[in-house]
């Protein structure tokens, strides 16, 4: 998901779609991130105003949950499962491979790809598991990983 410029009116529309309910903050933040790619500082300030909660409340929620990011990410988000079932099927080696192939550490971004850890994708009988965008892949070998990343690059060229 590429980062798009912050748009105060679009944010207000998201808040309205959730009836400006503070209890919907997490759902609102998901929508904010889908729209802007991350949760910009300006959005956090405006959310506090429109939901009538403190900026600390918004910041607390944004920083508590792993899903929410305050910095822009690459166009593609690649998550590699780091939890036990995938460990038992070689996820540590797969992660090493991915770091080398992409030239980034976990939580890093290079060439429009952000590599993130994730703790269980619920695909534990088809381990190791990887998620790219909103798609989960199973039984991912190093070769399969390279194919998937190659597919993204083809897609990038296709977009351009």
């Amino acid at each position, binding site marked *: 998901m590429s980062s798009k410029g912050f748009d105060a009116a679009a944010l207000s529309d998201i808040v309205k779609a959730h009836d400006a309910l503070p209890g919907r903050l997490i759902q609102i933040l998901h929508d904010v991130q889908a729209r802007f790619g991350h949760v910009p500082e300006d959005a956090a300030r405006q959310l506090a105003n429109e939901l009538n909660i403190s900026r600390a409340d918004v910041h607390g929620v944004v920083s508590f949950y*792993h*899903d929410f990011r305050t910095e822009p990410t690459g166009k593609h988000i690649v998550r590699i499962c780091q939890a*036990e079932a995938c460990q*038992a099927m070689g996820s540590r080696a797969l992660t090493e491979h991915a770091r080398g192939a992409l030239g980034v550490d976990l939580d890093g971004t290079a060439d429009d790809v952000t590599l993130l850890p994730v703790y*269980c994708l619920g*695909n534990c009988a088809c381990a190791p598991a990887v998620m790219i965008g909103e798609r989960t892949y199973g039984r991912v070998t190093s070769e399969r990983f390279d194919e998937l990343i190659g597919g993204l690059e083809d897609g990038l060229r296709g977009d351009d």
Partner: protein
Amino acid sequence: MTRTKVYVPRETSAVSVGADDVAIAIARQSKQRGTDIQLVRNGSWGASWLEPLVEVEVDNKRIAYGNVAAADVGNLFDAGFLEGGEHASRLGPIDEIPYLIGQDRWTFFRCGLIEPLSIDGYRATSGFAALERGFEIGAQAVIDAVKESGLRGRGGAGFPTGIKWQTVADTDADQKYVACNADEGDSGTFSDRMLMEGDPFCLLEGMALAGFATGASKGYIYLRSEYPLTHRILTKAIDTARDAGWLGNDIQGSGFDFDIEIHLGAGSYVCGEETAMLESLEGKKGLVRSKPPLPAISGLFGRPTVVNNVVTLASVPNVVRLGGEMYANFGMDRSKGTLAFQLAGNVKRGGLVEKGFGITVRELIEDFGGGTATGRPVKAVQVGGPLGAYLPETQLDTPLDYEAFAAIGAMIGHGGIVVFDDTANMAQQARFSMEFCAIESCGKCTPCRIGSTRGVEVIDRLIAGENREENYDLLMELCDTMEGASLCAMGGMTPYPVRSVLKYFAEDFAPRGG
């Protein structure tokens, strides 16, 4: 001529290994060859190691083909698979596959069988019959059936469901809630997901029964964000059920109002703890609450709340429809009924196995699982997710029973069974347990927040061979503090896997002499 039905699962695991591509290839081949097929996207039967598992209906028999790749599809058509023709991937009739016929399918009986989003298909397999029966027999009789069944919470804690429901029913309030915990974060578990993807109406019916029994009119499903396909399927199921009058006001003219909303989690493991989940449902940080008060008395927004796991709620419709006694016939001692075990990690035949309690770990991983995927000896088996103990080979004959597991310092949890072969370094696994706790701790209580970080450091020193005896004692003491003084199971049970490694796999730490 009737159209030949071809089933290709639309379920996360199947799709993760190519089921969508297979479905597209089948549709394309069929069009090219002018065959008349009806492509059905069913749920998964749970035989994940066979995915993508394609079935063709021939003379009212469903013939299965396993591990089908999109590239095989032309070949399958050549082999006459629409008539059940021979092929290397042909497994025979689905209802003769040993992995499936050896199970006690109670809660998952529709998974794989039906088209998940077809309300007609659901009705044709006794769907909503339990809710109709509930309306006839009344709220207390529903609770009594659940009590009689002996059903205990399948999320991990194993609390008797009927007693929880009775507490909510007996507490007066202007508003009550049903909060379904679909934050299935334990590694090695996917039964909630499979149920929601394969039989979503069953969960909705179970929630409606919980609402009817306790006087709650509003339900929430707290769904983890790592399940986007599940989210799409559930959203559609809720809309479909509402349109058909099975959710909303005055359900089927009964006078009972009940509606359901999905809340997405945001990647926090601790939000699977019930009170952290309630905080998160209120839009806040997932900080664990002190208990009491129990959520059944003061839960979501301070109101009485039924908090149950997906599989618990989905087990209820059959209990109400067929009677609690029938369910209680499965299982052993105080662990009544069935559990959807999940075979995962390094196992040859990974997937979901619903069985009555009492089966041993060895029977599951050998008879169903077929041993390790790598063909190497089993070294350790982690049961119950990241807070569950690692069992050595000598404990594999332990029957899966809540009390039998508690007796060996282990837990069944949500039924996830993760197999490791002899290449696993258990010291690294112990380290990961502490590291995971440090990453996921909500931070409210000190033993969990600080103890987990100190735990990683002490384990690193042990691995490096520094002052082994002192560091061993320190780690054991830290485990005692975390277990005794943490607010919830996150800090309180992280010591389980750590201690089990120290006890049974001590050789994986560096040799003595530091």
